[in-house]
């Protein structure tokens, strides 16, 4: 770890009080950033600890919820309003990491954890375009069991590891940002970038900009929602494939469907093609499989991750079948 300075911010104003040319980084629970600094994957000159900013979960005017960026993952998962109105979000959070890490990790930090793979972490041993622009990628042609099948590029196929963000993506969550001069809001779908030729840029976050919180809109369908995570061990492992889904069936047809995938792409993946294939249709296993096929038509495997394509197909169909219940 290279030397860095440290200060605690107790308000957004304090957090954003740095000089404009400052290289300060924001520190949440530290479960990713401290690790990255220690492994010398990243360097920082200065940290601003924003984990003690006010952490509230409040009702919004449209019947949704506002969640402050400093809310811990444990608190969000256990909030009875989340459990009742957005069960897939509680389920996603509870399937992520370990209890200790969920106690530390903040919502803002979870959003901004790095898209990563083992080669990204292997500073002395592997080339990585994400660490050193243009250096090459040793994952491609290497061990690719955990890599992306959707949205990857020639430069990078690492996956975004968050479970929380998969559920938030399905819920049309909006991220609130503040750099001290301008406040702006971005839908999560526009917040994350695909790697393309610039895999080191993972989000639209600007230098010095702070995630102040997220806004989860009201969503009737989400009352009937869940999150299923398929992984190499039954707890405390990243997703091979995960599915966040919500479904509302009215008069025998799908009136609202929300579907997002984790473990398969460099960002939380909204399955818009599958949603389009299902909207207005009668729920059935055939319809679910066809929707999954529509989403996965563009999937490309690197070798070791080829199993993810049929695994994603069957997991999508199984989760949708579970939500449809007797209606399918």
């Amino acid at each position: 770890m290279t030397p860095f300075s440290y200060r605690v911010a107790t308000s957004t104003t304090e957090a954003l009080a740095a000089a404009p040319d400052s290289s300060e980084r924001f520190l949440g629970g530290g479960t990713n950033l401290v690790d990255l600094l220690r492994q010398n994957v990243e360097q920082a000159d200065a940290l601003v600890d924003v984990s003690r900013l006010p952490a509230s979960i409040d009702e919004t005017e449209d019947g949704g919820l506002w969640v402050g960026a400093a809310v811990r993952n444990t608190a969000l998962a256990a909030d009875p309003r989340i459990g009742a109105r957005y069960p897939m979000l509680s389920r996603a959070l509870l399937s992520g990491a370990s209890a200790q890490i969920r106690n530390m990790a903040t919502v803002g930090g979870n959003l901004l954890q790095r898209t990563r793979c083992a080669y990204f972490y292997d500073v002395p041993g592997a080339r990585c375009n994400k660490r050193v622009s243009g250096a090459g990628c040793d994952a491609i042609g290497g061990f690719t069991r955990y890599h992306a099948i959707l949205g990857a590029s020639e430069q990078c196929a690492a996956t975004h590891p968050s479970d929380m963000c998969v559920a938030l993506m399905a819920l049309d969550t909006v991220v609130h940002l503040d750099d001290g001069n301008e406040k702006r809001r971005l839908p999560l779908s526009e917040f994350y970038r695909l790697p393309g030729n610039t895999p080191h840029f993972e989000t639209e976050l600007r230098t010095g900009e702070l995630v102040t919180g997220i806004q989860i809109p009201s969503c009737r369908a989400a009352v009937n929602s869940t999150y299923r995570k398929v992984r190499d061990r039954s707890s405390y492992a990243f997703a091979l494939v995960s599915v966040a889904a919500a479904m509302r069936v009215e008069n025998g047809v799908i009136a609202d469907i929300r579907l997002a995938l984790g473990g398969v792409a460099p960002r939380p993946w909204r399955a818009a093609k599958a949603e389009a294939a299902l909207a207005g249709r009668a729920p059935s296993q055939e319809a679910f499989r066809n929707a999954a096929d529509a989403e996965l038509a563009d999937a490309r495997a690197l070798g070791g991750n080829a199993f993810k394509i049929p695994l994603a197909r069957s997991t999508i169909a199984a989760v949708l079948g579970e939500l449809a219940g007797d209606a399918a």
Partner: protein
Amino acid sequence: MRITVNGTDYPVPDDVRVSLLDMLRERSGLTGSKLGCNQGACGACTVLLDGERVLSCLTLAVQAAGREVRTIEGVAAAEGELHPLQQAFIDHDGFQCGYCTPGQICSALGMLEEFRRGDPSHVTADLAGGQARFSHEEIRERMSGNLCRCGAHNGIVAAILQFADAGAGE
């Protein structure tokens, strides 16, 4: 600002890069908390920070300034009598080499508090149904952040069940 560990105040390290774990072990003589992976994968360094179980290897000591840390050294009664959970680990062979044990015990104490306040887990069927039933399955899931390479997990679960069933709240 000081860091309170098991009721005693310690200075915050001048070098802000020092982890809470290194501060405990290398600067405070509290070697009960163990260094395993040093990257948040094993749970051997688990301590209680303001009552919540956290990984001291991924916590900067400076982040604990003004807060209370409880380590394995603060679990037993002052006169040296074992905490009932420690005794339960002995009764059920909840360890072989013992390296992961301080983290397991601190983690279990934090876990039981999470359980008492009604926090659900990944295997809790009803998110809104109040307290989940305290079962083998619940304990395994809630303790999954603490690895035991000797493979004493069944004994660990049995020890926690015995302690919880005895109603031996703190």
